[in-house]
């Protein structure tokens, strides 16, 4: 059964909203009876933190039948959103005071915001990736670029014997070689224009006999451009986790410490 994403999103959002509203109402009810709200919300938050953190472990033991990763991600997203509301129930809609409270609160927001940012990236960048046109596996981009460089060097070497081959050699050394050496994350369209104009210039100087060689070089450069686009976009898609996950471990550690302190020094 294939369910479209929009209905699922709506349903999950409304369920999360209901959960938050329920928690807020529950907290108000308890507050009206002069009962404490810090403990239940704190334990719930800790449980949510653990569930959120365990998602990373779940990914590491992908073969265990613990529900699909997609289901986990859904829980991860919406529990995370619920946690943002719940932490404010927990601290009574006050801003925290004291250095440790601020540290924990700040870490929580940092994790939440990087998570939301990651979600947005995760949902938008694939469109851009698909629009690039080709598909390439991230880890193979380096190899491919090296191959492209070799290929380009080969082409240039092949025409070195000819007098006009120096034009290509110069072009290769001054322009193409630095370009093919490493990732270029400059604004892609401007680089594309730059490439086209460079190649047009070289083609004019190299003459009709080397037109094919220039076209090949241009093609190589163009592929490198697309590879860079992939490298850039896929790099972001992988990179945001480098911020999110360490922050999350820090926040979780701080939360556990907080729990320990509260348990040790009871009212």
């Amino acid at each position, binding site marked *: 059964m294939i369910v479209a994403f929009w209905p699922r999103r709506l349903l999950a959002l409304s369920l999360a909203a209901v959960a938050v509203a329920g928690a807020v109402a529950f907290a108000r009810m308890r507050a009206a009876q002069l*009962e404490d709200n810090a403990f239940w919300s704190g334990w719930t938050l800790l449980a949510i933190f653990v569930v959120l953190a365990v998602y990373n472990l779940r990914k590491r033991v992908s073969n265990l039948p613990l529900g699909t990763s997609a289901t986990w991600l859904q829980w991860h997203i919406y529990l995370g959103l619920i946690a943002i509301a719940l932490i404010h129930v927990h601290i009574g809609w006050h801003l925290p005071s004291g250095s*440790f409270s601020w540290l924990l609160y700040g870490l929580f927001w940092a994790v939440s915001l990087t998570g939301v940012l990651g979600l947005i990236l995760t949902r938008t960048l694939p469109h851009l990736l698909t629009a690039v046109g080709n598909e390439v596996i991230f*880890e193979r981009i380096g190899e491919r670029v090296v191959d492209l460089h070799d290929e380009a060097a080969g082409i240039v070497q092949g025409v*070195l014997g000819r007098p006009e081959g120096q034009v290509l050699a110069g072009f290769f050394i001054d322009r193409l*070689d630095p370009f093919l050496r490493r990732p270029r994350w400059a604004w892609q369209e401007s680089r594309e224009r730059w490439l086209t104009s460079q190649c047009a210039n070289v083609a004019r100087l190299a003459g009709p006999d080397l037109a094919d060689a220039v076209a090949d070089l241009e093609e190589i450069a163009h592929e490198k451009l697309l590879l860079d686009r992939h490298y850039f976009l896929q*790099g972001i898609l992988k990179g945001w986790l480098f911020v999110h996950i360490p922050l999350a471990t820090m926040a979780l550690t701080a939360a556990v410490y907080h729990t320990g302190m509260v348990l040790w*020094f009871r009212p």
Partner: protein
Amino acid sequence: MARKLDNPFSHKNSGYERPLKSRLRRVRGRLALAGFTAMVLLLGAAYRQGTGLVTEGQLHSKHAFLSKDCAACHAAGPAAVHGDVMTANCMRCHRDMNAEPHGSLALTAEVTTGRARAAAPETRAGFIAWANQLPGGRVHPATAAGIGCSTCHRDHRGQDAELIGMTEAACQACHRSTFAAFDRGHPDFADLAAQQRRQIKFDHASHYGELFAKKTKERPACTVCHEAPTSAEVVTPRLKRSETICMGCHSDAVAPADLLLLTSKGDEPTGFAQVAALLTKVVKSAAPAPDMAALAKPGALAKVLGAAAPALLADGDRQIGDGDLLKRLAAGTENKADPSTFPNGRWTVANAENEDYVQLTYRTTGHRDARVVAWLAWLRGVDQTARGTLAGADRVAWTKATQALVLDLTAMTAPTVKESRCGLCHYVGVDPATGVFADFAKPPVDRHFTRTYSHFVHASQAEKQGASIDCLTCHAALAAPPAAPADHAKDPRWIALHRERLGQDWQTIGITTCQSCHNAHAVRQDCATCHQYHQSVSGR
């Protein structure tokens, strides 16, 4: 050139991610581990150093001295702790919980004399039991209900955070069951003022409706007695000085008068002497028991008094200043005293030479005679002590004696006019159950009620709305006697204080008048609008 065209780099230095298996993921895992380690190190170091990092939120500035000692308030440790440890810790400092809602007005008096501080037990339960056994002592139900201090007083919210304020929701935690909103079921408070004791006995009904009218032939304006409200004023507009208002009619009641303190006629000592005898007997003072027979002899009184004087008068009459007064009186020298020596009254000993009939008289200075007030206060103290040791017939006799004595002290006329002049306006007398009372001070206003109401603001608001209001718009004579609040109905002290005033006053303001603006649709009507109950310090 050829060298340059060789492949100048392998993908190892190409700047791209190498196709090694999961290198990125390993780095990510290490970063996560590093985050954990950094956090543990940071927190561990902070904990060892005991810096502010370990505190869970700043304490209020008044508790700042506790901020490095968690265990000062919290139960620290792994073992399960039963009971409300933190509240017990609160009570270590906050024993004298005289302030509302935890204490009552009665408690306030105890506290101000310093006795509560000494006597109040350290635990909350002990405190509540102790407070409730005080005469008229009462603590707010929230205090008695076993709710910990931290239920309402949440610290760790910053140096300047609200620590004693109560939210609407918190009030409603208990009071919601009574009514839903101000315009929906709030109890009327028309006779609230009537239930409150004031400084003097005064009833608008007789004064405004009858006495003034008789005098002026028409109803006077309120401003005859009350100052017109000013913007700075809250609650009750000030009265004009009683000397100018009350004395217009009551000048004879406060005129200097002779206060007959002592009459010795034949064998029976009366008045002060009689009481003194009883006093001596009860209080078991160091002085020997007065010889009643000897007292009856001329000149004997002075001797007896002279012996008893330190015990009897030292407290009550400090202004006499020297214990020789009575000796001098007895010697007949006091009558010749220079008025400048005794500016606050005049002593006379009548018939000093007649051993069968001797009278000691004190002429007051008029209103607020310091010596009379002091004597009453002293008497009240002695009375309270004595009552604890008396029972049965002795107690009845004691009461009668003190009644007579108080009347003697306050009648300030010839013995034939047995009417207390002080008691006409002031709460002075003897209650058979509770004993002597003599309260001239302005009573504390029950803080449960509004203290921010401003006539000026309300009037100007009404004028802005186009309404013209005067005092009588809101205030009208009570149609029926005010009812005692349920929890005061059996309080003898309250009854003693109020019974004379039942059915004699004005209503402050009818609830419907308030509700015409304060309702769900117009002006705010939450609890804190009128009840300053437990608001922040700045609001007090």
